[in-house]
């Protein structure tokens, strides 16, 4: 199920290295996620990485939290890293007291295509049984443009832009 979804989802986020405070880099051991793209360093957060992490603007500051429930450690959370905008609107997450968050990103990755983002993506943050934050990327049906570009049927909900 998860493998199938990975093929149609945004599976990576890159954020300029300069955007991440050193404190966060150290705290989460992000050094090994540093990549060079055209001479500039960026930190990449892949769904395939372990642990799966994402940066989020939450409670007014930039934090790095767990991305989804890939290892199925939480029974009350879906075993995925994404959620549909429709299911949020339908109130399917309401019992978990979700909070909307912004996932800052310079680039997104879907089906091997890195695409430019102006600000980032929208996410949904809930808590696991121990109270730790977990973020899910919010998805919507892809525009035709995005669909052709990435061959994905779903696209992340972007902050103030449409691709």
């Amino acid at each position, binding site marked *: 199920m998860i493998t199938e979804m990975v093929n149609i989802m945004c599976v990576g986020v890159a954020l*300029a290295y300069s955007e991440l405070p050193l404190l966060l880099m150290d705290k989460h051991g992000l050094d090994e996620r540093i990549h060079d*793209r*055209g*001479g*500039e360093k960026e930190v990449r957060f892949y769904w395939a990485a372990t642990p799966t992490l994402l940066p989020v603007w939450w409670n007014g500051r930039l934090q790095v939290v767990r991305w989804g429930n890939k290892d199925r450690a939480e029974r009350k959370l879906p075993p995925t890293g994404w959620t549909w905008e429709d299911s949020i609107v339908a109130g399917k997450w309401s019992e978990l007291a979700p909070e909307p968050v912004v996932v800052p990103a*310079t*680039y997104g990755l879907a089906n*091997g*295509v*890195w*695409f*430019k983002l102006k600000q980032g993506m929208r996410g949904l943050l809930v808590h696991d049984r121990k109270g730790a934050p977990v973020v899910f990327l919010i998805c919507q049906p892809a*525009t*035709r*443009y*995005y*669909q*052709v*570009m990435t*061959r994905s049927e779903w696209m992340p909900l972007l902050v103030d832009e*449409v*691709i």
Partner: protein
Amino acid sequence: MVAHFAHLDADCYYVSAERVRHPELVGKPVGVLGNNGACVIAKSYEMKARGVKTGTPIWDAKELCPDGVYIKRDFYWYEILSRKMLDIVGTFSRQVEYFSIDEFFFRAEPSARTATAIRDHIYETAGLPVTIGVARTRTLAKLFSDTAKPLGAVAVLGRDHERELLAHMPVTEISGIAGRRAARLAPYGIRTCLDLADADGRLVQKLLTKTGYELWLELNGHPVTPIRTERTPHKVLARGGSLMGNVADPTLLWAWTVRHIERLIEELRFHVVRTDALGVQVAWKDGESTGGVCKLSCPSDRFDELLDAARVALRRAYVPHGTATHLHVIAPELRRAKGFQLSLFDIPDPKREAVAAAKAAINARYGRFKVRSGTTLHLPKVYKDPANDFDICDVRGKVCF
């Protein structure tokens, strides 16, 4: 001092324009994607070095350049920066030709210093890298600016210097001489630009007609083509393009036709022209192309009249059970404003005129297609898709096309 001809060509223009507002893209492999998101229409030098060419499909590009960054085209933005560049060049020269969105010709002093000053000023004030070539004719200026890319500024003023550069350029470097024309020249040993310049003018005219002869004159330093500070009026206007996939349903085909007519009318009104006929051109999946034309009783830019003509034209172009991929509507016989001749049966219809004016005013204020024909409701995938807001790179006033 006698003014020479200068050619300005923006370097990787769409990518450079994106870098103006996203400086983090500088130095990275960047590809701008076309209207459908399928093909690279502009690439940075970094991406070009990885083998990605203009027109490369994205699925091939991502294999060639896995770290490349892809961006959706934004023609609004590119036009804004283009006009800014044009304004800057206008402060240096009184005669500027807006050739295309990223290319201008203008009269300039014959010095490399002038070219450098303009190039640097554009880079400093607009953030755009451009290359400028100055020479005795516009054909030479264009050829020499191409040799100085990127961010170059050259003035080739002496005949010896010209000959030295022309000797190393294949004749196909000249805009207007490609495949068939080059093949016609080859048996006469004309392979480089210098070969062409040194050839007998009468032979060139025989082989390449008047256009070729004019190029020959320009290669030899005799200016033939002037700087056109204003675009010559359009002879034909057309709107259309890809149907976003395969269309076999005639209802959908008609909906596309109507959509394109609404776009065409917008253009007719902008240029204050009417058309005497309406053509519909359809490209089919099997590679065939068909067309139909319908004459109008008098010149028109009115929706109801063009719609009636389009029905006839589409019927003539239509292939039963065919699957269409592209469709264009064409206004092939334009008439300028002032004194349109009405036919005997053409009764002025103030009500319809008023409706058309109200529609145009609302769309001008709130955005294209805010008020549109109900027929186009058959295209929800087009109109409900927020990614399809602006689908044509058509800068008004440019000379090219």
